[in-house]
């Protein structure tokens, strides 16, 4: 099986000299839900933002190693970064609607990609809202401001907003932070549906959530990969003492 994403000897240092990632190696396969977990400052969010090149926004950083997406280096200067970001969608920890209606939020990515046909846009908006389990709640008020939605609805809208582009990979950076248990369950449930179609890399809210949703997981600590393996391997039979201590709640 070839990897959807392979990360090779990736290191990353912020402008202030803080080393966020050191010699990261991992492979992520198609249609799996891959979890990146670990304590804060482990480098999880940084790694996600390197994959879709949002880290480009930072000045004065240093990066080495490579990230291959479908065997193509995402940092190849000839690669169109807008294309990359359409293929690799992202949902952020804090739900961030853009000012405007729910419909405008959903249609934005498509419009920026140059799609003008209203029928195609309408159809894709509906489909992605269904995939994010939000359609029934918002179908009668698509023109309302996205800011009027509840926290859980906003987050599912953000998920739908990245799905509308029909990406290949979805990066989920703690998509259930600040959500109540019911909304969390709704999001987690939709993940099982989504991975039939997409490859998902997720930073979870907690170890418990990581163990609930993961097919495979990587435990990160201080910018290094401690251990990578299947859900069973990481959460039930970890080999590394640090992984064991973290998943059993002895630190973190």
């Amino acid at each position: 099986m070839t990897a959807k994403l392979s990360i090779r000897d990736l290191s990353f240092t912020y402008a202030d000299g803080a080393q966020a990632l050191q010699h990261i190696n991992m492979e992520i396969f198609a249609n799996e839900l891959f979890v990146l977990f670990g304590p804060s400052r482990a480098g999880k969010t940084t790694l996600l933002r390197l994959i879709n090149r949002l880290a480009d926004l930072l000045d004065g950083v240093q990066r080495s190693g490579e990230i291959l997406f479908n065997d193509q280096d995402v940092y190849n200067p000839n690669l169109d970064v807008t294309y990359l970001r359409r293929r690799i969608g992202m949902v952020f920890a804090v739900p961030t609607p853009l000012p405007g209606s729910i419909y405008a939020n959903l249609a934005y990515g498509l419009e920026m990609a140059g799609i003008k046909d209203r029928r195609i846009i309408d159809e894709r908006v509906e489909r992605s809202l269904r995939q994010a389990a939000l359609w029934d709640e918002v179908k009668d008020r698509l023109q309302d401001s996205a800011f009027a939605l509840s926290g859980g609805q906003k987050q599912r809208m953000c998920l739908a907003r990245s799905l509308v582009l029909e990406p290949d990979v979805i990066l989920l950076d703690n998509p259930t932070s600040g959500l109540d248990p019911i909304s969390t369950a709704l999001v987690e449930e939709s993940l099982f549906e989504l991975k039939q179609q997409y490859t998902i890399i997720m930073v979870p809210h907690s170890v418990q959530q990581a163990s609930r949703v993961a097919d495979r997981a990587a435990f990160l600590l201080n910018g290094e990969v401690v251990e990578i393996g299947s859900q069973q391997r990481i959460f039930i039979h970890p080999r590394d003492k640090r992984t064991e201590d973290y998943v059993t709640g002895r630190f973190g």
Partner: protein
Amino acid sequence: MSRQQTQVLATWLISITAVVVILPIVLVVFYVVAKGIGTVNWQFLSQPPSNGMTEGGIFPALLGTVILTLGTAVAAIPLAVGAAIYLAEYAGDNRATRAIRLAIVNLAGIPSIVYGLFGLGMFVLFLNFGTSILAGALTLGLMTLPVVISTAEEAILAVPQEFRVVSLSLGASRWQTIRHQVLPHALPGIITGIILGLGRAAGETAPILFTVAAFYLPELPKSIFDQTMALPYHLYVISTQVPGMPLSIQYGTALVLLIIVLSFTLVATVIRTVMRRRRQW
């Protein structure tokens, strides 16, 4: 003195300074309105001066100021907004950027008469535009640049960074992001800056002194290469250069100029307030 008494005294002193700051503007406005209101009517606004400017109205000067303000807008807005977008969105934090910022700050501090002399040297003589609306508008535009750039940059930077990040993450290009997620939300601030800058330009005398303003013209300007009369300079002329000038015309002219300049500020404030109330974030 007890702490209580110190507190009372301090409050009084601070209140007095506030009143002292407000008093001059209130007095100026009241004084000019009281003295000038009797003169300002449709005749005054729509008629040219007559009889050696001691009679008639101010129409050519009023029209000249409107034209010059429009010209200033055309000259300054694209350049200033472009520079603000560059500084806020594209410029890295390096020596070149710092030099540009320093230049803008210094540009804002240059006395307006120096702009006037620069305009004379650069536009009137070197570029050979002559004493003309073109030269005057460019000079005023140059003077307006720093204030518009600074306010526009601030307005652009005030747009939450998340909007940019989200937009980029959805595959929008950098320019699409600026065009659709940054500029629309920065627009009220940018417009406010433009209006305040134009308000200042409309009331300035020194920059137009050598570049465009005419003492008296029997005819209205026909092209941008013609001279024009302008309100601030006209006021200066009728207050100091024309013997036997009736005070009523002087105050009437001052009132019209004051209303124009203050209405710019008022419009800017209204736009800002309305747009802020409509904002969702």
